[in-house]
């Protein structure tokens, strides 16, 4: 198909490079530099989708971010992305796009029946209708709405693209490269300020690309090109196109999404698809320009009705005619500029101006060109279904209430201009209290809350001369404050045509006997009548009207609809617009890909992975790893066809029978030094610490101030003023912060230093009846006998030339030791243990066997110390000192904590000695009781006892102390299990703790 609507001698596209692309399966041609929208329009395609609610045909309304209709599903390089605006998507070879919100096709759309049912689909229809009958919601309403609605389909495949995050600082951040942005950037850059200039479009220049102005004896575009070229040579300037600053956050942090690769057929190697910039700016210059607003009239959503500025942009930037018989409908001079461009390219437009008489240089030029101008005339309704075929027009009285005789004139597009709305989103997000400016019928930024200034059209200044003057000055002044340079800039002369006052007119009244839909919000199908209903039903706040009617919601966030909606509410309510107020602007200004927000933090990169120094040995020996916080720990070492159950049982049995070795590097370790170290420990732990001798370890329990157990571990006195604390793997960071809190803020008089040494020490736990024999062979020069190194003893040793710390502590309940060496020797230590241990039948054991060993011993861990239990609950009240004070002690007097039937740890064995009890099961008295069945407790940890060869669990049970011997039921609705159980002591194996002391 030829590009029938492409004209010669206009546009900034590269006509030497033709690109082919597909839309709804059909192949078309465009040029490099086109957007999908401009290329489709060049081929005469105006029907692009269906509207959200009524499924009315939709075309193009704008030429940029404001586009409410032209949302497509994009296919690129085997990937698909929904919610792409055709007006923003640059064309590339092989691009494919499809319409959304239509089924089975855009030309024949079943949902369009809603259009004929529209009398039944007024504002709040969904709220009112789908409430009854209740059962219909899941079966009928929701599936139907899901099928009918939507602006595209998210890909279900893994995204192959890469997204990056970047942090940047600058003196001046400039949002938008129109005249004010360029002037501000140039002045600031000349003063040596570090400048970032961001432009959301591919081309720099903003309105200068399409306006007929002269700056310093050059066309506006040439001037812009010159400034950009010079800025690009300056080392203190970063210039980014295709980059949307979409959010203004606290303390001058702005976030920008840079589309690095979306304009290419595929992403280049090593390039990201998008880059998210977090920019901390000293000053922000908002030069985001303005968006033309529509005038509301009958059937104003028909394809072919579009903003007059968009028609001009398609013509001047892309060399595309949006029609050959244009009708321009305006209430200000901007419409004339579009008409003049049409005329210059050999197309005869008709201009309808709602004003009775307006005079200006622009209008004079239009008249001189012989353009047909009808004053005091309006479009009453567009005619045509899938494309504008004609327009009903009429004269209008001066009070804008009475329409004259309606006549029908032929046209193929209607270009509307209802004046300009400053883009104040970023200013408003920054906390700026916006104010209503009567002269332009729109809101502009008011008083700044952060270091920002809004310039040019975004500030409601539509004169180029004034814009340049204020922007050069602002750029100079702001940068001068920072760099203390003051280089004078010659502000260029501007030649622009003066315009006349616009008409405060925004909605054409309905002619008698006609009931045309007059749309306010095009993306959500919100018509004038819908807002009227909402107000009639009592909605007053503009925020409520928005939510009830969906006015200004969805992906375009009402860029073209908000102000007209406010005008309507204020008119009906008989209030002025500022009294009605506007809805809150929230980031993002335009939709941002989830991928860009997530960045590189996907999959394995979503958090760091920590590995012990022995990790490669574990890998080589068939370890199956498990995540323990950010650590990877061996869960079990697989032999042959073993599964988790078999392997962990074998490993645990070998610990009980011979000796095992477990990597305990991940335990948190904190080095504590200072004359008051013992005093600190005494305050932090519940038990007494002042009399711990040098060379001894002690088990300690620490609470939060609310009495809940925070963590447990052993701490060893290495020397007089030097302690080595261990914490659980999960709580290591919290415990360090906890200690720092008390040392820095609560008891600064204590002379103690704490530092994390988790990564400095590699640790191996050697456990089992043969562990002492092994240890003796590892440290032949040390006396590790029961007398030389008793239970809870500590000594330093020489491990084949490597300095080692030896602790006689046990988590498994067996005779056991922990050996620590500096991390770099971790692997050496491990290999020596395995080598020397071979004669004792040593086997490595993983976390699963470790759990089994501690559960059947009744030792508590994270599943019992779960942030809900106190020492008593864990049968650790013996560790709570009655004599001294410590963190959280006062809370233990709370009545709930001292109740007679307080929960307590117990052991649980299934009556059949066969069925494993799922962790998390509830313990109940009667398995047949009606729901909700009163819960007496829960299973915190389960294992297969290797000592007794049957399942064993730990539970936290109400009145656990008096429940030993009781028969209960463990119920797991998740696993659909009901298991009769007996409550036993939590110390299932070696209740007297003789083995550890042997």
């Amino acid at each position, binding site marked *: 198909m030829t590009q029938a609507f492409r004209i010669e001698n206009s546009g900034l596209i590269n006509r030497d490079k033709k690109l082919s692309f597909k839309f709804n399966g059909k192949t078309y041609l465009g040029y490099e530099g086109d957007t999908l929208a401009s290329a489709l329009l060049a081929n005469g395609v105006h029907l692009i989708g269906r509207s959200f609610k009524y499924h009315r045909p939709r075309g193009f309304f704008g030429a940029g971010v404001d586009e409410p209709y032209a949302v497509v599903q994009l296919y690129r390089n085997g990937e698909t992305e929904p919610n792409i605006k055709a007006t923003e998507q640059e064309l590339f070879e092989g691009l494919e796009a499809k319409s959304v919100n239509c089924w089975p096709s855009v030309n024949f759309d079943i949902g369009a029946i809603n259009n004929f049912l529209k009398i039944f689909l007024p504002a709040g229809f969904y709220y009112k209708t789908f409430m009854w009958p209740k059962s219909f919601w899941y079966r009928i309403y929701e599936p139907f709405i899901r099928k009918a609605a939507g602006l595209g389909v998210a890909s279900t495949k893994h995204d192959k693209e890469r997204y990056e995050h970047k942090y940047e600082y600058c003196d001046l951040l400039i949002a938008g490269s129109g005249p004010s942005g360029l002037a501000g950037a140039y002045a600031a850059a000349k003063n040596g300020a570090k400048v970032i200039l961001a432009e959301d479009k591919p081309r720099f220049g903003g309105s200068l690309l399409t306006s007929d102005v002269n700056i310093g004896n050059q066309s506006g575009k040439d001037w812009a090109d010159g400034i950009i070229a010079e800025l690009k040579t300056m080392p203190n300037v970063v210039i980014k196109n295709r980059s949307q600053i979409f959010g203004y956050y*606290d*303390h001058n942090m702005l976030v920008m999404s840079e589309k690095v690769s979306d304009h290419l057929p595929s992403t280049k190697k090593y390039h990201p698809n998008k880059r998210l910039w977090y920019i901390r700016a000293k000053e922000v210059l908002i030069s985001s320009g303005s968006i033309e607003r529509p005038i509301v009239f009958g059937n104003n959503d028909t394809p072919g009705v579009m903003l007059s500025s968009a028609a001009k942009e398609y013509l001047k930037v892309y060399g595309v005619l949006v029609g050959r018989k244009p009708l321009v409908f305006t209430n200000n001079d901007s419409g004339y500029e579009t008409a003049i461009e049409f005329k210059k390219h050999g197309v005869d437009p008709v201009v309808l101006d709602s004003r009775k008489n307006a005079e200006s240089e622009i209008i004079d030029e239009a008249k001189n060109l012989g353009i047909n101008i009808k004053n005091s005339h309006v479009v009453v309704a567009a005619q045509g279904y899938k494309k504008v075929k004609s327009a009903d027009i009429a004269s209008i009285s001066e009070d804008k209430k009475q329409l004259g005789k309606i006549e029908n004139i032929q046209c193929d597009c209607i270009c509307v201009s209802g004046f300009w709305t400053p883009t104040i989103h970023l200013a408003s997000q920054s906390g700026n209290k916006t104010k209503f400016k009567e002269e332009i019928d729109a809101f502009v930024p008011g008083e700044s809350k952060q270091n920002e200034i809004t310039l040019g059209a975004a500030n409601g200044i539509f004169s180029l001369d004034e814009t340049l003057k204020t922007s050069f000055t602002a750029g100079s002044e702001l940068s001068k404050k920072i760099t203390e340079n003051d280089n004078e800039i010659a502000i260029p002369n501007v030649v622009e045509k003066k315009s006349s006052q616009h008409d405060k007119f925004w909605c054409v009244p309905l002619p008698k006997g006609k009931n045309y839909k007059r749309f306010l919000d095009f993306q959500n199908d919100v018509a004038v009548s819908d807002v009227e209903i909402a107000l009639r039903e009592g909605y007053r706040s503009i925020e409520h009207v928005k939510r009830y009617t969906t006015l200004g919601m969805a992906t375009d966030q009402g860029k073209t609809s908000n102000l007209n909606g406010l005008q309507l509410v204020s008119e009906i309510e008989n209030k002025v617009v500022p009294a009605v107020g506007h809805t809150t602007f929230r980031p993002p200004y335009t939709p941002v890909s989830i991928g860009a927000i997530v960045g590189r933090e996907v999959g394995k990169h979503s958090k760091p992975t920590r590995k012990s120094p022995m990790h490669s040995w574990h890998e080589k020996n068939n370890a199956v790893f498990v995540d323990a916080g950010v650590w990877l720990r061996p869960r079990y070492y697989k032999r042959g066809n073993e599964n988790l159950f078999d392997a962990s049982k074998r490993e645990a049995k070998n610990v009980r029978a011979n000796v095992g070795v477990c990597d305990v590097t991940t335990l948190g370790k904190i080095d504590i030094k200072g004359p008051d170290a013992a005093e600190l420990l005494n305050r932090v732990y519940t038990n007494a610490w002042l009399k711990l001798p040098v060379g001894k370890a002690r088990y300690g329990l620490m609470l939060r101030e*609310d009495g809940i157990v925070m963590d447990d571990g052993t701490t060893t006195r290495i020397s007089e003023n030097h302690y080595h604390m261990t914490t659980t793997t999960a709580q290591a960071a919290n415990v360090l912060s906890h200690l720092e809190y008390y040392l820095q803020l609560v008891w600064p008089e204590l002379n103690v230093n704490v530092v994390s040494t988790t990564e400095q020490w590699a640790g191996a736990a050697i456990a089992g009846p043969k562990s002492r024999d092994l240890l003796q062979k590892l440290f032949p020069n040390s006396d590790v006998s029961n007398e030389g190194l008793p239970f809870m003893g500590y000594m330093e040793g020489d491990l084949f030339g490597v300095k080692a710390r030896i602790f006689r502590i046990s988590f498994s309940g067996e005779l056991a030791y922990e050996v620590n060496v500096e991390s770099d020797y971790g692997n050496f230590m491990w290999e020596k243990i395995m080598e020397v241990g071979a004669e004792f039948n040593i086997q490595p054991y993983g976390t699963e066997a470790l759990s089994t060993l501690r559960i059947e011993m009744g030792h508590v861990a994270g599943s019992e110390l779960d942030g809900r239990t106190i020492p008593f609950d864990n049968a650790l009240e013996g560790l709570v000192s009655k004599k001294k004070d410590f963190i959280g002690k006062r809370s233990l007097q709370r009545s709930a904590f001292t109740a007679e039937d307080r929960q307590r740890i117990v052991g649980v064995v299934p009556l059949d000695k066969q069925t494993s009890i799922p962790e998390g099961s509830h313990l109940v008295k009667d398995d047949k009781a009606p729901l909700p069945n009163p819960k007496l407790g829960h299973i915190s940890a389960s294992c297969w006892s290797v000592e007794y060869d049957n399942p064993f669990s730990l539970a936290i049970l109400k009145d656990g102390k008096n429940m030993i011997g009781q028969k209960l039921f463990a119920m797991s609705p998740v696993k659909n299990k009901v298991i009769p159980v007996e409550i036993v002591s939590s110390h299932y194996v070696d209740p007297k703790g003789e083995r550890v002391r042997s």
Partner: protein
Amino acid sequence: MLYINCPHCGMRSQNEFSYGGDASVKRPELNKEVSDQEWDNFVYNRKSLRGKHLELWQHISGCRQWIKVERDTTTHEIFRTFKADEEVA
């Protein structure tokens, strides 16, 4: 994202810090007789001020010092920051 002036390190982004709650809370002295009400006030009860609020932050990814930050809870404006042992006047 807040921009916090660590009195030890200078201006740093919020993601280097962790929040520590109301800085005006004083822990009752050790070994002192404390009524239920006093203890509840220390452990649980907070004013949750609207406006100027003196609060604790720890520079966990920096110098690891606990600092005091005077911040407006509605606008996020930070007025002053203090070292842990600095008196707030």
